[in-house]
């Protein structure tokens, strides 16, 4: 049986000159490698930050990396890959509130609220909460994941986004690549790739823990999109738009991944 561990590596006899030569080559290479690595790091660390646009706030090479990661990893995306669901009893009764951007307008009255859908032909669809609630309700209990790193099992109810598309004959809109949603005051907005929006677990939610949404959770209607981080789960939807171009996204303008997919 061949086993190199049983035989000692051969010793070689070298002159001091030969040893010096090998050391010189090796150490030159080592120092050169380190200088190159350090230079590359300085280049990356000091590389310019994107000018404001759909995405902003990240170093340009790192933004390219984020976008390339998305292009590669979206190949693993499938409507059959479902977020793990839990029994209702496991849902946390105290649903965490992390942000009030876009819902901090104290003069807001949900009785005067309606959902505006900007259609492809330029026309608008105006929907009341009652109309949305009249459609079949879907419930989900899943582990909500925040980009900060915390997660919480929570229980939501609402209209499945794909059902909403089908019911209001928005099939032409759903052929476009992106969906955008914004709060009525336009202070918070998210851009979503269509496959994620059309994922069977994406909801236009109007209930949490079986009760109507309180203001802090996005009364009267919010987005629950389990295939994305919490930052994409916009509270208090005012408008929904469709486009083949990426639509504005609040956190993508602050250096975060535009897609933030899970």
């Amino acid at each position, binding site marked *: 049986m061949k086993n190199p561990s049983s035989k000692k590596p051969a010793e070689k006899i070298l002159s001091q000159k030969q040893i010096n030569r*090998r*050391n010189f080559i*090796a150490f030159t290479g080592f120092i050169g490698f380190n200088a190159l690595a350090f230079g590359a790091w300085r280049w990356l660390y000091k590389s310019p930050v994107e000018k404001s646009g759909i995405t902003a706030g*990240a170093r340009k090479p790192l933004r390219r*990396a984020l976008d390339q990661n998305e292009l590669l990893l979206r190949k693993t995306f499938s409507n059959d890959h479902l977020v793990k669901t839990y029994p209702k009893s496991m849902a946390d009764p105290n649903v965490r509130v992390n942000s009030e951007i876009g819902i901090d307008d104290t003069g807001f009255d949900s009785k005067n609220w309606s959902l505006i859908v900007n259609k492809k032909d330029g026309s608008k669809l105006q929907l009341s909460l009652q109309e949305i609630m009249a459609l079949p309700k879907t419930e989900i209990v899943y582990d909500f994941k925040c980009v900060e790193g915390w*997660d919480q099992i929570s229980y939501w109810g609402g209209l499945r986004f794909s059902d909403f598309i089908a019911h209001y004959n928005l099939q032409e809109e759903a052929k476009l690549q992106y969906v955008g949603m914004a709060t009525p005051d336009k202070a918070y907005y998210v851009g979503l790739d269509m496959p994620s929006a059309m994922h069977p677990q994406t909801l236009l939610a109007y209930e949490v823990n079986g009760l109507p949404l309180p203001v802090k959770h996005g009364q009267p209607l919010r987005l629950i999109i389990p295939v994305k981080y919490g930052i994409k789960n916009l509270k208090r939807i005012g408008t929904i738009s469709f486009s083949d171009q990426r639509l504005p996204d609040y956190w993508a303008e602050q250096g975060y991944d535009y897609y933030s*997919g*899970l």
Partner: protein
Amino acid sequence: MKSIKEKHPLATRWAHWINFPVLTIMIWSGMLIYWANDVYSFTLFGHTFFRFFPDPVYNFFDIPHRLAEGMAFHFLFMWFFAVNGFLYVLYTAISGEWRLLLPNRHSFKEAWLVLLHDLHIRKMLPPQNKYNAAQRIAYTSIIIMGLGSLITGLAIYKPVQFYWLTWLCGGYHWARIEHFILTIGYVLFFVIHIVQVIIAGWNNFRSVISGFEIVREKPTTDIKIIEDEKPIQ
């Protein structure tokens, strides 16, 4: 003339020195991410010994409020970490180096003797090859830990698409904890590794750069038969 012994193959040396800065960047960017939800602590019987991390540590490394930046760095350098690790394992497997690196049936008993020796409790080291039993265990564990970081990392990164990895890690919540513990493991490994390298000395350190160790100042062939010694008849 000096007698030298080839020690570390070029591929091993490259993998080692590429991994060092890459892992450093991964740990640093990981800390930028962890800061945003820094809930872990070392607590035993209700007493918290250490909170990850105290403010002076954060401030020293300029960690706070850099989550987006941390994620962007982390999700680029993860590729270098993974590819370098994969190439190293591939090389080790193909070259046969793994025979010197994987622990064998004696290693776990011998590692204990190595530890006693290193702590100056025991004088003799068990007979060893290129790597002693403790090194075999350490250098194999660190590769398994690397694989663990990839798996737990992917389980947090894409918990829906790679749901089976997340399941394997015991769920999303646990995967993040495991990912963190592995990182603490690297830091501990690093500390011990550096101490051992300093103790082992220059000849050993140089071999990780130039590949060989000097075994004898004078080669064995220089030994001459002393004149008055006659062979036994």
